[in-house]
């Protein structure tokens, strides 16, 4: 059988790509790029504000916004036309980040068993261990996207020298709360599981708290997260506190 040429349409970003019958991706870059991440966050915020009937859910990933819709109410062709109009409205790569984001400060230990690959990662980044911890905690990092587990945020971007490749061999399991790094990003693990990233620290933070009806999933895309270095003892003391000692405030 011959397939229609439309199956092979893939223009350069920004690009609309139907994802099945009831989904649409708006892609701002085909490789990880900070401006594209900001664009995706801002674009999603704009779509949420439109509140079209038939809009079911929106989301972002690293460089794309995603719209889930009911095709019976909002025909895909109409949605595409509206999205194109909004795309043309402005330079989304230069858009401001949306309001209503949260700044989190999360205590983390970088000592002993809490940081089994810190020395390794520091060396690869060309830093002393002390300088590495200082840089990891130096500034808030943006939740570029969440995935793998509920509440698991990919935080970035760190400076270029943190562009560490993943390990060839997976670490069979890191614990919930572990801080791992690769490709200019940090993750606070929201579950325990295998990873190809290097574990450089430990928090007691639970990013997924299904019993907390208020905020069952701590982080949302676009939130800022700053780690605060504490001793291993202090980390255990804080573990008993609400949010394991983490604090949060609205970003104005």
């Amino acid at each position, binding site marked *: 059988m011959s397939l229609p040429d439309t199956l092979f349409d893939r223009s350069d970003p920004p690009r609309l790509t139907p*994802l099945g019958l009831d989904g649409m991706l708006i892609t701002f870059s085909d490789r990880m790029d900070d401006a594209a991440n900001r664009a995706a966050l801002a674009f999603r915020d704009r779509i949420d504000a439109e509140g079209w009937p038939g809009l079911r859910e929106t989301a972002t990933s690293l460089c794309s916004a995603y719209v889930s819709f009911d095709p019976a109410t909002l025909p895909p062709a109409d949605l595409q036309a509206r999205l194109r109009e909004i795309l043309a409205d402005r330079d989304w790569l230069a858009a401001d980040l949306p309001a209503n984001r949260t700044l989190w400060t999360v205590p983390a230990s970088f000592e002993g068993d809490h940081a089994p690959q810190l020395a390794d990662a520091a060396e690869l980044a060309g830093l002393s261990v002390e300088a590495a911890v200082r840089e990891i905690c130096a500034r808030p990092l943006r939740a570029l996207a969440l995935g793998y587990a509920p509440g698991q945020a990919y935080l970035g971007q760190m400076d270029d020298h943190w562009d560490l490749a993943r390990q060839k061999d997976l670490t069979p399991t890191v614990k919930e709360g572990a801080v791992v790094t690769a490709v200019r990003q940090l993750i606070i693990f929201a579950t325990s599981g295998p990873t190809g990233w290097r574990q450089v620290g430990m928090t007691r933070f639970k990013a*997924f708290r299904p019993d907390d009806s208020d905020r069952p999933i701590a982080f949302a895309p676009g939130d800022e997260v700053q780690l605060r270095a504490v001793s291993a003892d202090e980390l255990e003391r804080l573990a008993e506190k609400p949010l394991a000692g983490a604090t949060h405030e609205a970003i104005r």
Partner: protein
Amino acid sequence: MTKLTVHKIGPGASVQDLGRRGWLSQGLSRGGAADRLALLEGAALLEQSPDLAALELSAMGGSFTVDAPTRIALTGAPMRASLDGEPLRWSASHLVKPGQTLALGPATSGVWSYLSVGGGIDTAPILGSRAAHLALGLGPKLETGTELPMGKDKGGPVEQILEVSDRFKGGDIRILPSTHTALFAREDLERFTETTFTRDQRGNRQGVRLKHDGAPFATRDQLGLVSEVIVPGDIQMTGEGTPYILLPECQTTGGYPRIGSVLPVDLPKAAQAAPGAKLRFAFVDRDAALAAHQSEDAQLTALKKAVRPLVRDPAKMRDLLSYQLISGVTAGRPETGDTQ
């Protein structure tokens, strides 16, 4: 509050509803019933809201009792079913009284079977839904002795039936392009639509693996793909080039290439293909997909219209049913509460 007591239950069973929306961007997939149509069928048979939760059973089934007269509906993958040893019709509603044992299973075809109850299973909602998320450990663990609360039944008829098309043996599945379809070579996409796939043994609520003869499927530069949103129905190629049809508990983002996405109306059929079933995929154009599409509201309305009373001649009923289910239930020997 009335209770449904589990006496025996196979692995992979869980409480399910239509899942939770609104958490995709924070890494939690919609979840909910693997065969959403079966939940709608249960709601139509019991004349109640499709938002109520039911029991999703895998092939082995289970046995159950109630502590008050309870309307039930049996939908999804057909199972052998009996009440105190008396065969029960599938895709139908029945009344179960205290003291009677409802024995379900094994499935005669398909993968996911549903036991809906009047008033719904009334476990505590988590993030807006009662749907268990097995990969995350959300929802009650079902085992011998588990007592599940049931909501108040507003009442309605029983002994109603639905004629449903057989979606339990694989077949032709219609797909539309997904994130990475355009990155596959034309000859690979053509080969994909010309290949007969077999549902592998490996599968769960996250996705089911397909196997095929011939070369693996891959895109150019597929290790460099940026992670994108994933939804149930996407057909994802793993690193080894083997397709998986992703189901309600799939991850929310990922960087493996997705060759297509199953039409929502064909997803129940894709999910119900049991190990060994054959599946073939065909790209359809968007207009054809839209013409075939029915919202879940529209599906429920149509199902409600299709519900019919079970017509039978009481004098002949016992013989007739045992004739139809001759290879099925052993009559007169009710399941006891033994564990497996």
